[in-house]
């Protein structure tokens, strides 16, 4: 018999989840060594981040204490104050960098979710000439690294007059291939009868897409949002954006870090600010993201 919690969990993630339960064929020694492994490598993964968090709260003399310490002894917010003073005095105000990053990230994500969903719907649910070829090309493009296309991309951007505008970063993000791929796989789970019923009631394809398909793929939106957020949040428009007032937070952070020893405190504060946003976002959306990837039944 299931306890209520399990019932809920099952319903939430659908048929896909297998509740962890005691299985046969387990040796205690094997379990112990696996968990030792997990702890050891977990520490390797998390310690640099712990160090970064602690550093952000260290007073300057503690950053340069010998021997260096991992944990802060006398936490202070001075580094953040320094950072804001430093950036407040810079030619471009700090708020401008924040606005740039938020705008690029926001616009890129909204456009990507809408465009990728609109393209994923026919690929998942309709049959038409060229469908296989188009999807194969998209899957193949998962294998490119942006570096391969960086040079011609620059030329195309300059022909289109997008150099030194936000759009040089935003527009390519609309057509990022991983999002379309995940969305298409997720949409295949939507029952056909639902769409048939709407069609019989006289709804157009566009209406079906907007009022039936889109609300049904909300969990997948979240996955797309997180994936794209990571990319855009970390982007500095390197190579496309030259105007100082259009540059991103990440670029500003690089400037601070490049400032050397006198800026060490502020650099630590910047590191903390930069990493805390995407991590927080992931904490709140984790279960939905994994759910999407689980139910999207990726196929080869």
């Amino acid at each position, binding site marked *: 018999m299931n306890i209520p919690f399990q019932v809920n969990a099952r319903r939430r993630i659908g048929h896909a989840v297998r509740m962890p339960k005691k299985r046969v064929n*387990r040796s205690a020694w094997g379990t112990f060594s696996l968990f030792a492994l*997990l702890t050891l490598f977990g520490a390797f993964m998390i310690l640099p981040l712990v160090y970064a968090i602690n550093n952000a709260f260290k007073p300057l003399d503690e950053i340069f204490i*010998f021997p260096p310490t991992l944990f802060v002894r006398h936490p202070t917010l001075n580094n953040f104050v320094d950072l804001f003073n430093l950036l407040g005095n810079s030619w471009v105000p700090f708020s401008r960098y924040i606005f740039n990053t938020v705008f690029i990230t926001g616009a890129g994500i909204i456009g990507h979710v809408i465009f990728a969903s609109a393209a994923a719907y026919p690929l998942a649910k309709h049959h038409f000439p060229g469908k296989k070829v188009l999807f194969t090309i998209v899957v193949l493009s998962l294998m490119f690294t942006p570096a391969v296309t960086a040079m011609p991309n620059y030329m195309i951007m300059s022909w289109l007059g997008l150099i030194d505008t936000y759009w040089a970063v935003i527009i390519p993000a609309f057509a990022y291939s991983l999002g379309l791929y995940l969305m298409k796989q997720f949409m295949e789970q939507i029952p056909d009868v639902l769409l048939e019923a709407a069609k019989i009631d006289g709804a157009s394809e566009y209406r079906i897409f907007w009022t039936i398909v889109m609300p049904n793929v909300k969990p997948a939106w979240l996955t797309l949002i997180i994936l794209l957020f990571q990319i855009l949040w970390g982007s500095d428009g390197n190579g496309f954006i030259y105007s100082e007032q259009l540059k991103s937070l990440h670029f500003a952070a690089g400037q601070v870090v490049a400032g050397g020893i006198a800026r060490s405190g502020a650099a630590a504060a910047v590191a903390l600010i930069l990493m805390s946003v995407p991590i927080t976002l992931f904490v709140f959306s984790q279960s939905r993201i994994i759910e999407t990837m689980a139910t999207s039944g990726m196929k080869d």
Partner: protein
Amino acid sequence: MQNWWSLKWHEIRANKHSYFLMAPYMILFAVFTVLPVLVSIVLSFTYFNMLEFPKFIGWQNYTRLFLEDDVFLIALKNTLLFAVITGPISYIACFVFAWIINELSPKLRAVMTLVFYAPSISGNVYFIWLMIFSGDRYGIMNGLLLRFGFILEPILWLKTEGYIMPIIILVQLWLSLGTGFLAFIAGLQTVDGTLYEAGAVDGIKNRWQELWYITLPSMRPQLMFGAVIQITTAFAVADVSIALAGFPSVNYAAETIVTHLIDFGTTRFEMGYASAIATVLFLIMVASNLIVQKLLRKVGE
């Protein structure tokens, strides 16, 4: 033949809504992904400096690349070394950790997922490692080694040829438990639980057999997906190299194909040559993807 075309045309017209829905995405995709790859391949056979019209020079860029450019050979060696080490290790690590985490209780599972995924999601914060491997005695690594008496003088980690590659590989591994890792966690949750019970009846003795005969084959799609992602990242190392070792690095010790590409593309404006580098990288990636996918089809047999 006339008939076939009119039939197709009819089909296309009947599905015009599908094409309309796909148009915005596909047009942008073509302009910013497909077209650049094609342009790159075409340009790789030309001399092009961004000022004059490209001049066709045949295979000259490629022969220069492999026969005359010593730095490219270093870059090629470094990239292959990266890929061969970080690719498989991070792929296996992604799977092993996802597999162990999957057996934890839901709350603990969420925490451990975050612990392993956090570095790759935290957005270019690998400059933390600059502080850890800082060349003076205040860097964490030097500090520890000095304190315990392993060394007497601080080591210039990122300026000494022998240390650069191992450090970048370490940082790259730290960063590499990303989308593939999440896909594996998700994949493990889709494995049908009754298969394990059936397996136990059929004489599966331990968890390793369970892994090979049941778990891995059940999540083959995620394994494929993870492989594509890992291979692509393993071959594209550049940001970490530039951030940690500088550009160019000491004696090109951290030069990779991508940093070489950036060098010729953005510093020297030899676009034809840079395109040849990009094309070589592209071919290497596709080839290794095909090989790995072939191997993965054998899993659990």
